[in-house]
């Protein structure tokens, strides 16, 4: 274990902490962490690494999720920490929950008062109130408004202000940048600094490593419930290990031998999308070559999904063009785009859970069937023959993706397998270009490896182009031919994985200013 260089005494000391959910799932497997007084410590890691679990253990809210500490100790200010969430908060360890969770039916003023209930005395409350007013003048203006009417950024400010009202010694922040615009994220970072300057120790859990490393003194990286790396923020931002984790390793040898393909090039030119006054995409251009695997990546909120939605006809472009083999797609309805051979999957699974895998896949081939459903239903000989042909093709595609139990209802399969069924369904429509939206979101490591394998094989065997949207850079680095990186709606890089990984802009976006 790498010891963090400790200059101040630890205010929060976690030793060999083990947590499991529902008595079975091990979420933390012996995490040790020492938070020096007056520091900002960032806890980094991917989804499922155990970041939130660690915070829940610290704030005493594990029982609400059916979780329990099964081993190890948490010491706060030198004493063993109480179990009850309210007692912990009153002791000076206050958490700003993920997703802000302001009391939306209460006014801003009342939200702040609710936070003040945990303050040690009236004087502390008054002092905290003055400070919150100074930090967040906007909250003063909105004092009598219902908190639910505030914008996301304002709600985040309120959530932080509410926690400050309790005069915390240690402030725990759970994903404060999630879903916020870049300017606001920047402001949140500044606020964390200001809070820390007043002597409040901060523990910051973030997926946005750039933001976290820019404000933290120390950082730990969690991976499947264990501490994988730790050190000062600067050390970590520089370290190859973190770069690898966040940026991935490009394939040593490019296997980008061109696949035999009958697909056409997809050309995106100067594409802009605005929602009201907000620019979700501005002036984005890239080209997906026939038969290539093209990745579109970027941190949360970069505009990736928006781009995909324009390509598949769900959103309308404000300006610019998207051409597939000479056909302009921006004016077409989604089903017309699909008819051109452009298929997509969704972030959320959209399959019929009670129906077998085979039937779920066959549905996708209806577009290709000549006999109507009546003939099929009557089991006329021609229809029977046709059905048999389709079924054979479906089985082929399923095998390609490593799907074996085709008779099982989809609902009984594991999450990773269901995602592959969804991919198979998209492929059963025999597309030329496949748009994949975060295919490995929420998957454990083995599952995402299986998915990567399935994507690579289906592209090679079926000769299609793939446009892959993903925020996990490590996933795409090993398989993409070309990568386009978006940040805050703008294209910041475009090139081979190796080129992109060296790009200074990309490093800044993913790892923060230190890089």
């Amino acid at each position: 274990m790498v010891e963090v260089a400790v200059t101040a005494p630890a205010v929060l000391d976690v030793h060999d902490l083990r947590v499991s959910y529902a008595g079975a799932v091990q979420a933390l497997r012996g995490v040790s962490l020492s938070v020096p007084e007056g520091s900002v410590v960032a806890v980094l890691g991917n989804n499922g690494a155990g970041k939130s679990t660690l915070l829940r253990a610290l704030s005493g809210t594990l029982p609400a999720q059916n979780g329990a500490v099964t081993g190890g100790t948490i010491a706060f200010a030198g004493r063993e920490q109480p179990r009850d969430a309210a007692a912990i908060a009153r002791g000076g360890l206050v958490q700003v929950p993920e997703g802000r969770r302001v009391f939306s039916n209460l006014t801003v003023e009342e939200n702040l008062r609710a936070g003040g209930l945990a303050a040690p005395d009236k004087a502390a409350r008054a002092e905290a109130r003055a400070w919150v007013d100074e930090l967040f003048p906007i909250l003063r203006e909105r004092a009598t408004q219902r908190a639910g009417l505030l914008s996301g950024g304002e709600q985040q400010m309120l959530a932080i202000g509410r926690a400050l009202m309790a005069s915390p010694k240690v402030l725990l922040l759970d994903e404060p940048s999630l879903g916020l615009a870049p300017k606001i994220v920047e402001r949140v970072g500044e606020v964390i600094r200001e809070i820390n300057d007043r002597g409040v120790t901060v523990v910051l859990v973030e997926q946005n490593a750039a933001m976290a490393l820019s404000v933290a003194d120390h950082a730990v990286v969690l991976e499947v419930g264990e501490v994988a790396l730790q050190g000062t923020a600067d050390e970590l931002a520089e370290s190859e290990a973190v770069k690898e984790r966040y940026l991935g390793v490009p394939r040593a040898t490019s296997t980008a031998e061109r696949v035999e393909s009958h697909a056409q090039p997809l050309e995106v030119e100067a594409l802009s999308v605005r929602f009201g006054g907000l620019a979700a995409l501005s002036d984005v251009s890239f080209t997906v070559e026939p038969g290539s695997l093209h990745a579109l990546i970027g941190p949360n909120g970069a505009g990736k999904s928006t781009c995909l939605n324009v390509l598949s006809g769900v959103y309308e472009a404000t300006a610019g063009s998207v051409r597939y083999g000479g056909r302009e797609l921006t004016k077409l309805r989604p089903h017309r785009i699909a008819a051109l051979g452009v298929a997509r999957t969704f972030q959320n699974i959209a399959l019929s859970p009670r129906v077998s895998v085979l039937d779920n896949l066959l549905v996708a081939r209806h577009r290709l069937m000549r006999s109507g459903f009546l003939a099929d239903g009557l089991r006329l000989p021609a229809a029977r023959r046709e059905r048999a042909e389709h079924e054979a093709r479906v089985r082929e595609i399923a095998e390609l993706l490593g799907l074996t139990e085709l008779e099982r209802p989809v609902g009984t399969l594991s999450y990773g397998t269901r995602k592959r069924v969804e991919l198979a369904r998209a492929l059963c429509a025999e597309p030329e270009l496949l748009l994949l939206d975060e295919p490995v979101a929420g998957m454990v490591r083995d599952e995402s490896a299986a998915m990567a394998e399935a994507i690579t094989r289906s592209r090679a065997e079926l000769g299609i182009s793939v446009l892959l949207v993903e925020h996990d850079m490590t996933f795409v680095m090993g398989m993409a031919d070309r990568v386009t990186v978006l940040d805050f709606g703008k294209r910041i890089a475009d090139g081979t994985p190796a080129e992109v990984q060296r790009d200074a802009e990309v490093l800044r976006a993913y790892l923060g200013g230190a890089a």
Partner: protein
Amino acid sequence: MNQFVTLLVGGLFLGAIYSLVALGFVTVFKATHVINFAQGSVLLLGAYVIARLHESLGFWPAVAVGLLAAAACSVLIDVVLIRRIRRADLGTLAILTLGVDILLATELSRRIGTDVLNIGAPWGNHVTELFGIRVATSRVVAGCVAAVLVAGFWAAFKFTDWGIAMRSAAEDGETASLMGIRLNRVAAAAWALAGALAAVGGLFLTSFPAAGVTGGVGVLALACIPAVVLGGFDSPGGAVIGGLIIGVVSVLTAGYQEELSFLGRGLGGVAPFAVMLLVLLIRPSGLFGTRELTRV
């Protein structure tokens, strides 16, 4: 016309009493997400204690003891039964309180038997004349007490730390506990308040023009269920309005029974539920209820 006004005023005063009981119902629901069917028997308990003690202690001390007893009983239900299964689903908790209600009501009505216990209120069967309408003084007192309590309740909810804690906990318990709000205390306070409100309701429901405390008084709290549903389960304001509506409807249907006899006799008991169903057909989450609630 005169009859209508008399009935309307009588109904509003009766409704004011229902409002108090319904308010207790809503408070418990907001704080702990329990549909508390035991409210009826707690009401009976409060009234029973007052009726039994007023001769030896005097009326006001007896009322104090009755309120305390009902509040304590209510808190006990929460602490002993509800707290350990706080995260159980709505149905389980509701049935649990129904069980408590049956036990407590059976025991109390066994003790009361066929007796009619006088509640011993100082206003007895006095009558007050309001703008030419004669109303039982106890009902006027009930109306004033209800108005004061509802206003006080509203102010406490709105302005005190306790009220803020209660509303925060009602909205998002987990976050509230992260803010240092002790959920168990908030819950206990809500239950205590509901018990005390039930006892006040019981006191007035058994005062003149009712005869006194009988075994069947607990059933009267049933009238508050349409009031609560009608108002929307989680809305204190809705409970108050719902209570008033139910009071007026039941008195009007009883008063116009002759004119409404084509609908069948004995309509008074059914009408509140009919009104409730009508409202729910149009607004499935009640007049003032939060919409999410229908999805619970």
